[in-house]
């Protein structure tokens, strides 16, 4: 199913009038594919809070948890893929001899040796079925290691992305409006749409309520307590990073967030006391090369604590959106194509005007093709999705951990690939139940929840989003339940 408007085939010399309706549909489709070549990209999730295993805190497993796990999630294999790519940085624990072993569906693909700097691990990745969701896990292995290793995953993705139909090229119009040329415009539009559809738009984890510290001794690093580690992409010149910050502070006199880019502090939030707070932070990416990723980390820091013996409570931090996009509030936008206006039906136009209109469509399509070809970091990779941050193997406390961070997408297309079991899509207003006067933040519910995978058996399916009432294009929604992979395709 395509979001393109359907246009009937053009036929030569059979009395087919050149129709304003068809021209408007052509223009609308060209504008759509042009806009889709600018893809806002969510952060790639590496890890979250210290109790789930995060840089510097991979300690003990005496409670049955698995803090040797660095990363676990899934990627979608598709025909043509040959290579898994794992990028990041890794520093060994003090006195340790560990390596990071990468597993696909539980089978080792090899190991990464932490060198104290960046790594790129690119094992062969074949033997799967088209569309198969493959589990990827990275574990600390070796004879000995301590708790203070630092491992940050910047990206896990498969390459190459192949799209077999040949590019039809674009026509030039100079007074002859033949079926060949008009159909070529339609084919070029369809080709671009299909090419972009070959790259899924993969969900990232929206941190809905992570537990933040409430005492000064909760500042377990120089910046506070870790909330998020991952990477952000500067996919286009106009990209910066937008981060939504939301805090429910029940008891702490003063706390704030800190944001680091490539290890350097770039944002320190205002000190917030008791109350509910929210803001949107824009992190400048002008120091990051276009086409490159940068490490992003977020910390929660206690500035002032209560007197000893006072009632205390965790702070609930939410970072539901961490995404690369233009700083719209400052007037920055992507440079979308400028297309000539469509003439009204039954109105007289000169060939000069008509040629200019049709050629503006051709130019926009040609530029869109070049933009896709040049942007291999977005259109040459299919990324993996991290599962909820957890040191556990999804056997205990699963509900709570899924509530903390859930896969999130903003509806852009009509098709959703989703894998997992007992999955619903949650959207609309979020409400928090109150029990005995206390808000149960961990038990938040969505106004609308639509079941997409029933039962307790793993399944991968395609959901046609148009069929879900109220899930309009542009609506944000979360995967609720055991979601193993979630991505929209055009």
């Amino acid at each position, binding site marked *: *199913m395509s979001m393109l*408007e*359907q246009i009937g085939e*053009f*036929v*030569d*010399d*059979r*009395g*087919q*009038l*050149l*129709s*304003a*309706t068809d*021209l*408007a*549909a052509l223009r609308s489709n060209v504008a759509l594919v042009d806009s889709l070549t600018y893809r806002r990209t969510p952060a790639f999730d590496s890890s979250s809070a210290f109790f789930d295993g995060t840089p510097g805190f991979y300690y003990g497993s005496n409670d049955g948890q698995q803090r040797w796990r660095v990363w676990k999630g899934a990627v979608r294999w598709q025909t043509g893929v040959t290579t898994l790519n794992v990028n990041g940085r890794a520093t060994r624990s003090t006195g340790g001899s560990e390596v990071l072993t990468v597993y696909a569906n539980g089978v080792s693909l090899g190991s990464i040796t932490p060198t104290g700097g960046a790594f790129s691990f690119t094992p062969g990745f074949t033997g799967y079925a088209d569309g198969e969701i493959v589990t990827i896990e990275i574990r600390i292995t070796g004879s000995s290691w301590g708790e203070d290793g630092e491992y940050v995953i910047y990206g896990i993705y498969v390459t190459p992305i192949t799209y077999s139909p040949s590019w039809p090229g674009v026509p030039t119009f*100079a*007074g*002859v*409006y*033949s*079926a060949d040329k*008009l159909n070529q415009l339609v084919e070029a539009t369809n080709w671009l749409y299909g090419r972009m559809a070959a790259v899924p738009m993969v969900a990232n984890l929206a941190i809905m309520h992570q537990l933040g510290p409430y005492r000064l001794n909760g500042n377990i690093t120089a910046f506070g307590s870790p909330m998020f580690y991952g990477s952000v992409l500067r996919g286009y010149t106009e990209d910066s990073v937008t981060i939504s910050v939301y805090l429910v502070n029940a008891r702490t006199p003063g706390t704030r967030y800190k944001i680091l880019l490539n290890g350097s502090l770039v944002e320190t939030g205002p000190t917030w006391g008791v109350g509910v707070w929210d803001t949107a932070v824009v992190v400048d990416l002008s120091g990051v090369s276009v086409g490159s990723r940068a490490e992003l980390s977020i910390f929660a820091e206690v500035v002032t604590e209560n007197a000893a013996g006072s009632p205390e409570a965790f702070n609930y931090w939410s970072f539901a959106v961490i995404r690369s996009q233009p700083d719209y509030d400052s007037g920055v936008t992507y440079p979308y194509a400028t297309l000539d206006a469509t*003439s009204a*039906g*039954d*109105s*007289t*136009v*000169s*060939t000069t005007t*008509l040629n200019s209109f049709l050629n503006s469509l051709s130019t926009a399509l040609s530029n869109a093709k070049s933009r896709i070809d040049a942007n291999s970091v977005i259109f040459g990779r299919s990324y993996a999705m991290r599962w909820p941050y957890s040191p556990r193997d999804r056997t205990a406390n699963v509900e709570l951990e899924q509530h903390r961070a859930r896969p999130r997408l903003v509806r852009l297309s009509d098709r959703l690939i989703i894998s997992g079991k007992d999955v619903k899509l949650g959207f609309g207003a979020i409400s928090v139940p109150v029990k005995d006067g206390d808000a149960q933040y961990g038990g938040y519910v969505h106004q609308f929840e639509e079941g*997409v995978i029933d039962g307790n058996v793993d399944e991968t*399916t*395609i*959901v*046609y989003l*148009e*069929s879900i009432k109220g899930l309009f294009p542009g609506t944000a929604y979360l995967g609720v339940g055991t979601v193993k992979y979630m991505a929209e395709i055009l």
Partner: protein
Amino acid sequence: MARPLQEVLDDDTPRLIHDGETIEFSLEPQWPLKSLEVNTGLKDTTAFDGSENFAETALIITDLTGQTIAQGIDGYGHQLIVGAQQVTIAVTNFASRPIVLWRVVLRGEPITAGEGGIVSVGTGEEERQVGDNPYVQSRGHAERLANLILTFYASARAAVELEGCVYDPDRYVGEVVNFTATRWSVFSEPHVIVRAAHDQTGAGASYTLAPVEGIPAATDYYMVGSFNYSGLSRAVAF
């Protein structure tokens, strides 16, 4: 629009199949099907070629003691003919004893109609309503048709009845002819023939004409084709 994968048919009619017998029956899902789930996954209904089989869960079959009968040469076989809104299933008993097909449960992606819409064109007090048409599936298509209707009906066009004419076999309904009536001060104005009839002898004929003066002709528009319009101006159609 295609709906998500879901149960599309649940038929619980018990059907007894004797040893070696084949029964064939047709079931009609509530909605047309885009795809149907078979043992290899979802398959578009247009791609069925008769080689498909349902998964074991689709056909609930036991022998008369209640023991489950599986697909295969010691159980049952089946063949499918799948259309958009009819699934024909032929089940053959290989089990060497009577078996019962208790239930058929099929999953697939149904197609359901989206919400209808209304387009209106033109202004004024006079209104002409055009009914639903199942072949109109987009707003653009509806607007185009509405504009064409408006173009013809926006002006009152009095019908002209012609009686006692000489029968001319070359005249046909839909033909545009020039009509002259000196007493009415009508001189060679284009009219479309909306009715043509001849009398019993075939010598005389009567016609009904409708004036089409002012309605644009095809030559007023750009047409898809090999003609070079450079330097000319035409209209784009609705």
